[in-house]
């Protein structure tokens, strides 16, 4: 097989990679005029036929989502760019924005043209100050060069991009939470339907797309759908519901590895390949005990599952929730799953928006039970209790509005079913690992 050449990350290590001048010198915006002159439906078809699936976590086919907009709507139609990236372990959107803002802006232009939107709102998590300043400068360059604003490059197309900063809440990444937050309210996700494509931002048809998804759009329009489909994993012929996992993907690898990194590879690499070939192996000469396949919401792979293909279908085959954000967190064999799971539950409990009782109470109680176990006072029945709580919360059992709750339940289900021995040994030993730092945080 020919060596894979990065595309999304092709420019990130070049000097001055963020400026309009070097982006154009590398061929950026070279065909934007031509693309903006295509019929919007033709642009949608290219993206649809490429098989691009959303990179934000759900993996929904991108072009298909765009077709859900009402036909002949008088407007306005909005594009929201989801740059809230807060799933623990995930940092690829940040690198894309900090190192190659114009690649994203070009994708936004193409997407807006396709969905007939003249207003794009980029919702950026507050913590990304560097991304904010880089994007702000890049957007200003575009206005000055006639690439944004009125009648772009004489095509008659108008587009404004507004940068909107969040205020430190994970739930703003959920698309309807994002919309509520942008409208100036608390980020309480909305009950669906109506889906945003019908009634979204300011009650108008809205498409929400992830940063990496839009960066892929740029390259699909330049290189063609055949190019995109030559990368990744085709649909499983035995599964009529698998649309395949095409294209390059940015995998984030962190935790107990020698060289934490973000690498661009064809969809479908395995956790083992990522750890060994790209992240320098497990640190301190140890072995990996568990791997988070795509952000903590997706659960865990046990060491027997490290050869699972990390494409959209793979993690689900071994009981994980999905590929999620492809954020791989490696946990070494000296670490207790009790401590790891506690950290996941505490995160979810802290970030639950609180409007659904099973999520608000479930995440809080799971954290409390794990706190008790970590204080040396756990009982073996606690494990069944944790499983029962986890089984009762989420969109899958049908008790909550959004998927945060499924993402809170999954690490619990996976940890206890795949690493039950770890938990039993811990409880029976009666040891306690509550750290002094944790006590400090509880005083907060």
């Amino acid at each position: 097989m020919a060596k894979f050449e990065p595309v999304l990350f092709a420019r990130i290590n070049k000097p001055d990679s963020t400026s309009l001048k070097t982006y154009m010198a590398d061929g950026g915006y070279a065909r934007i005029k031509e693309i903006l002159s295509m019929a919007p439906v033709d642009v949608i078809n290219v993206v649809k036929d490429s098989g691009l699936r959303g990179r934000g976590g759900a993996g929904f086919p991108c072009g298909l989502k765009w077709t859900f907009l009402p036909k002949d709507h008088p407007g306005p139609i909005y594009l929201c760019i989801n740059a809230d990236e807060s799933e623990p372990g995930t940092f690829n959107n940040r690198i894309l924005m900090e190192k190659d803002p114009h690649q994203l802006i070009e994708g936004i232009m193409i997407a807006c043209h396709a969905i007939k939107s003249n207003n794009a709102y980029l919702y950026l998590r507050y913590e990304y100050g560097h991304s904010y300043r880089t994007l702000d400068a890049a957007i200003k360059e575009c206005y000055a060069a006639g690439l944004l604003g009125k009648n772009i490059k004489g095509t008659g197309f108008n587009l404004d991009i507004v940068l909107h900063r969040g205020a430190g809440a994970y739930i703003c990444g959920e698309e309807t939470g994002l919309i509520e937050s942008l409208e100036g309210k608390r980020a309480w996700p909305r009950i669906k339907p109506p889906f945003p494509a019908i009634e979204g931002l300011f009650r108008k048809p809205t498409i929400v797309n992830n940063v990496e998804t839009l960066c892929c759009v740029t390259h699909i329009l330049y290189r063609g759908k055949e190019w995109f489909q030559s990368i990744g994993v085709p649909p499983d012929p035995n599964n009529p519901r698998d649309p395949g996992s095409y294209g390059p993907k940015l995998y984030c690898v962190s935790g107990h590895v020698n060289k934490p990194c973000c690498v661009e590879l064809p969809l479908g690499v395995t956790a083992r390949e990522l750890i060994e070939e790209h992240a320098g192996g497990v640190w301190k000469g140890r072995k990996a005990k568990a791997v988070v396949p795509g952000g903590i919401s997706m659960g865990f792979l046990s060491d027997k599952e490290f050869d699972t293909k990390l494409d959209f279908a793979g993690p689900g085959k071994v009981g994980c929730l999905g590929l999620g954000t492809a954020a791989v967190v490696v946990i070494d064999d000296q670490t207790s799953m009790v401590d790891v799971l506690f950290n996941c539950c505490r995160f979810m409990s802290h970030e639950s928006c609180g409007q659904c009782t099973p999520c608000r109470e479930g995440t809080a109680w799971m954290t409390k039970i794990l706190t008790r176990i970590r204080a040396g006072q756990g009982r073996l029945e606690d494990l069944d209790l944790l499983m029962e709580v986890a089984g009762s919360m989420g969109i899958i059992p049908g008790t909550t509005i959004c998927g945060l709750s499924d993402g809170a339940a999954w690490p619990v289900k996976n940890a206890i079913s795949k690493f039950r021995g770890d938990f039993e040994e811990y409880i029976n030993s009666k040891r306690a690992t509550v750290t002094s730092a944790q006590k400090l945080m509880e005083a907060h």
Partner: protein
Amino acid sequence: MSVLSEQLRERIRQEFPKYPNKRAVTLPALHMVHDAMRAVSTGAIEEIAELLELHPSEVHDTMSFYNFFKDEKHALGKHRIWVCRSISCMLRGGEEVLEKVCNKFHVHPGQTSADGKVTLEFAECLGACEGAPCILVDDECHMDMNAETVAALIEKL
């Protein structure tokens, strides 16, 4: 006397054309006021509400959802330091970094040092896990921290 300077009010008004209604300017306005005044006081909430044609309780409702914004009783110090406590940082010593900094300044997370220089907080994943453990000083990220490097960094503020 108004709480918000005319300059701040003007900056808030400049956001209006970017959105189809004024309510959407709530977060931008809160950020501007919070940055400038290190807290959003009840008086400031009332004045923001007036500018955005909202009821003060609507602005307060939004503000209180985001733990990020502080009221006048919890005003921020000159700088805010966030120490990440989420999974990748925890696995590489994030909690120890947090503890060392707390001890150094004699504060709990959420408190401000006696000299008013820094407010210390824990953060959830800062999206910089390749540099775990990491911290944010205001909105700039610093990676691969340990107790000594954080102390040195803070010394320079």
